[in-house]
Every structure is written in C-alpha cells, then in structure tokens.
C-alpha cells in the first residue's frame, strides 16, 4: 500500500511524457492522420517481398533487453518479414556467438558494452557521444564480419544507487563523496559486477574505494536490497523505472570520474543477413527505435518490471501508441 498514490502520480507523469514525446515525433513525421510512411517515421508498411525472409531476433534475458527484442521483432513482422524470437540469451558473450554462428539474425547491444566487453576498451576510452561510440563499435564489428545499425536515442549505464535518506545523511551526491565513508558501507550488485572494470573493479581502481562488503545478487533484487536495508548501496541502471517513479526514495550518485560509460543501443547483425533481408531490415529497426527516448524506455521498463506486463505487450502498446502499427 505504501506510496501507492505517489507512485501512481509519478507513473502518470511519465506516461504524460511518453505521449508528449510520441506527439512530437508524430508531428515531425506526418501531417494529420496520414498513415503514409514518410522520411521521418510513421506507420510501418508491410512489404510482400519480405515474406520469403525469416529473421530471428535475439536479446539478453533481462526486461529492458526483452522489450527491445520484442519491439524489433514485432516491427519487422509488421514490415512483412517472418520473425522468430530468441529473447533469453544469457549474456553478451552468448548473444554475440549466436549472431556469428547464424543462430540469430541480430540482437540489441549497448555500444559501451560492446566496446568494453568485446573489444577490450577501458571505460575511459569509450567515446562519450552516441555517434562516436557507434562508429567505433561498428568499425570494430566490421573487422569480425559483423555490422551494427545506428543507435537509439536513449542510453543506459550502470549507476551506484542508494536510498535518498542515506544520501542525505551522508551528504552524498557524487561517487567521489563516498571517499572515507565506503569502508563502512555495503554494496550489492550482479555477480559479474565484482570483477568488471565498468562496475566494482572500476570503482576500486579509478575511485580508490574499498567497501565493507560486496554481495553478489540477482539483478532483479537490485531495489529490494536497498528497500529492506540489506545494502547501503546497490548497482542500478540509469533507465530504471524506479528512478523516476520513486524519485523521493532512490537516488543515483553522479559518476564524476566516468567509470560507467553510458551506452546507446545498437542492433548487432551480419552483413550477409542485411544483404539477404533487403533494405527494409535496417530501415524498420532504425525507424522504430526513434521513439525510444529515456523517459519512454523508463516507462516501458516500468510496465514490465513494476506493473508486471509481459515484454511482448509493452512492446506492442509502444508500437501502437507511437503510430508504428495500426
């Protein structure tokens, strides 16, 4: 029961933001109710020529990825392709391997993750701007007979989060403010966080922080451990719905030394698949992600993580509300 009204009001605000941004996108693309697909967006038109092509869309196995996978899959289906889905790939290593071995046609990946995880860049070497990171990742992918489509408007990054109460008591605004306090604070994060340079290993190396204890937990528990007071700090994602819906409760500390590179999502695929699928493949994917701004992505994450909608349903309503499907 707690905070129900507050949460409802907050998600209403996010919803409003969603409609506004969609409104703006719609205005920019087509006048009145025309369903004609213009240069800047609009409804996806089914092309009968695509009916012979089967595409398998993959994603990693957490809500935001599954939503993205569904958005792309349903959009491509609307464009006339036969679409299969594999939305439960365990990690980026598995997902990339699946693309390389033609088990999936492609999947959405954060440009920052691609650069650090696949190509061994240090977090500080990741270009801060979306286009720069995309071009760098694309160039690296092309060396391995892979390619990537342009980035989404939204970016996601890891973040150190805490309760607003804790932040106020300890006067924390940036991660650097943890200096001298972290030794008495506990941090929870995904099991791989403790070894990753864009997570705990980076906090230790670049900020010189030591924590009282790091406990590995399932990603799904990242807010539970804060709420229940089991951890002082928890690794969150900047796209998390809770950060806007429960602003009075959770805050993230500013990453003042840029250890957590922000990543816009790029769709990773193979040149041979692009050739076989024809121009509608890239066009549909780039088109359909234009509405995915940070507030929209947060709202979609909220529908799945907080309101327990299925990713398929959340994706379908996004496509419909944004005018991509009828």
């Amino acid at each position, binding site marked *: 029961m707690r905070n129900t009204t507050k949460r409802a009001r907050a998600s209403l605000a996010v919803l409003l933001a969603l409609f506004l941004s969609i409104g703006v996108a719609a205005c920019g693309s087509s006048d009145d109710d025309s369903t004609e697909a213009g240069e800047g967006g609009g409804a996806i038109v089914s092309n009968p020529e695509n009916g012979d092509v089967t595409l398998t869309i993959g994603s990693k196995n957490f809500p935001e990825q599954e939503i993205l996978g569904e958005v792309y899959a349903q959009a491509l289906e609307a464009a006339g392709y036969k679409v299969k889905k594999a939305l439960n790939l*365990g*990690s*980026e*290593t*598995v997902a990339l*391997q699946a693309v390389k071995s033609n088990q999936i046609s492609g999947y959405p990946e954060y440009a920052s993750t691609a650069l*650090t*995880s*696949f*190509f*061994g860049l*240090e977090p500080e070497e990741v270009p801060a701007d979306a286009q720069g990171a995309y071009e760098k990742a694309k160039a690296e992918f092309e060396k391995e007979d892979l390619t990537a489509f342009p980035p989404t408007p939204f970016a996601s990054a890891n973040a150190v989060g805490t309760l607003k109460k804790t932040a106020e008591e300890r006067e924390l605004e940036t991660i650097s403010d943890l200096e001298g306090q972290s030794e008495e604070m506990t941090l*929870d994060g995904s*099991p*791989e966080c403790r*070894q*990753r*340079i*864009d997570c705990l*290993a*980076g906090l230790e*190396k670049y900020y010189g922080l030591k924590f009282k204890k790091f*406990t*590995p*937990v*399932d990603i*799904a*528990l990242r807010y*539970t*451990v804060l*709420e*229940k007071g*089991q951890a002082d700090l928890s690794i969150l994602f900047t796209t998390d719905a809770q950060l806007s819906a429960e602003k009075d409760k959770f805050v993230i500390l500013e990453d003042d030394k840029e250890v957590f590179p922000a990543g816009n999502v790029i769709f990773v695929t193979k040149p041979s698949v692009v050739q076989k699928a024809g121009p509608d493949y890239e066009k549909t994917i780039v088109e359909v992600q234009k509405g995915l701004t940070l507030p929209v992505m947060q709202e979609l994450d909220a529908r799945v993580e907080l309101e327990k909608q299925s990713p398929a349903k959340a994706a379908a309503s996004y496509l419909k509300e944004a005018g991509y499907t009828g």
Partner: protein
Amino acid sequence: MNASIGGAIEFIFEPQSSNVTGGKEVGGLSQVIELTLNQLELTVLALALSLVVALPIGLYLGHRGVGEALAVGLGNVGRAVPELALIALMASVVGVGVLNMTVALAVLGVPPILTNAFVGIRQVDRAPVDAARGMGMTEAEILFKVEMPLAVPTLMAGIRGATIAIVATATIAPLAGVLTLGDFIINNNVYGQNGLLAGGILVALLALALEFGLAGLQRLLTSKGLRLSAA
C-alpha cells in the same frame, strides 16, 4: 571464443585473461578450490537442515502408520517450489546470503527425505516388527533397532536424491550472495565459454563424488544380512 574440453581444463588449473576485468586474470586452481569448498559447505548445511526437519517427521509418521497424505503430499508440493522465486521471496525477509540459500536448498532436500523415510519404515515386513513387540521391545527400540536398519536402502535413496538436488541447485547461489561454482556458469561475460564448461564439469564431478561417497556410506550402514539378500 569457442569452448573446448582442453580449454576448460586449462581454465581449472591456470588463471586466464578476461576482456571485461581490466587486465585481472580469472579462474585457476585457487579460485576453483575456494568455490568448490563454498558449494560443499552450502550443500552440507542445507542437507543437515533437511535431515533435521524431515527425518524425525518421516520416521515418526512411518512408525505410527499415519499421515500418509501429509508425508507424500508435502513431499510432492515441495518438489514443485520454484527455487529462484523462493530465493527472491526470502530476500525481502531474511536478505541474501548463506541463511537464505540454506533454507531455499533445504526446501529441495526435505521432500525426498520425508517421503522415503515414511515409505521406508512403512514397508518394513510386519513379521519382525510383531516379533520385536512380542519380545517386549519399546516402541522406540522397535523403530531404531528393527525398522530403521531394515529401511536403510530406502532412507538412503531419499538422502542421496536430496543431496544431488541440493548440490546441483547450489549452482545458482551466486544470485543470492553466496559464491559457488555457479559463478563460472552465471558470469559468462567474465569467465568466457571455457569457464562455463569448466563450471559445468566441476559441478558434475562434485555431484558424482558425493553420490559415490553416500553409496559407500549406505553399504556401511546396511546390516550384513540385508547386504547378502540384496546381492
């Protein structure tokens, strides 16, 4: 990039470089030993808790010949509990860590031990039990000196089943604050494909080792007369 048995074995003995750790090596024998011991410790704790909970109830109900619905029904319900959901549920009550995992894994261990204790005692031949009662043995003596020795194979089958279920499932413990061999499997981005395969091999070996150990224990516990008749 691709996993190979050779690569996995190398991973077990020699630390390997990883893309995501900023140059720090992962895997290798010392980490393997540490994680194996963690997994073993968790298994022993969870098995002990299951035994403490399930064995007295199963033996008592079996001896009295009552509560079949409870012993078998509870056993079947226990098997249907989704482990990850249970861990998440308990995370908000007791937090994550050894306690959470021990209880969650004991939920897997209780059903086979309870059901097999009940069935094992129930199916003991009535003749020796009646004879024992006729000789003036107390109910406790009948249970511990007659029924239990005769029920050892069934009892141990339950305990072995529980052990395998627990040790195998302890693989997911890194999701709840306890680093076991599952770390190699879950953190694919850190350990790579060889680490994944190595984790699988190590968990399988650990389960086999426990199975053989308990089979040996069962032989020791089975009375000589029964061993011959079984052969």
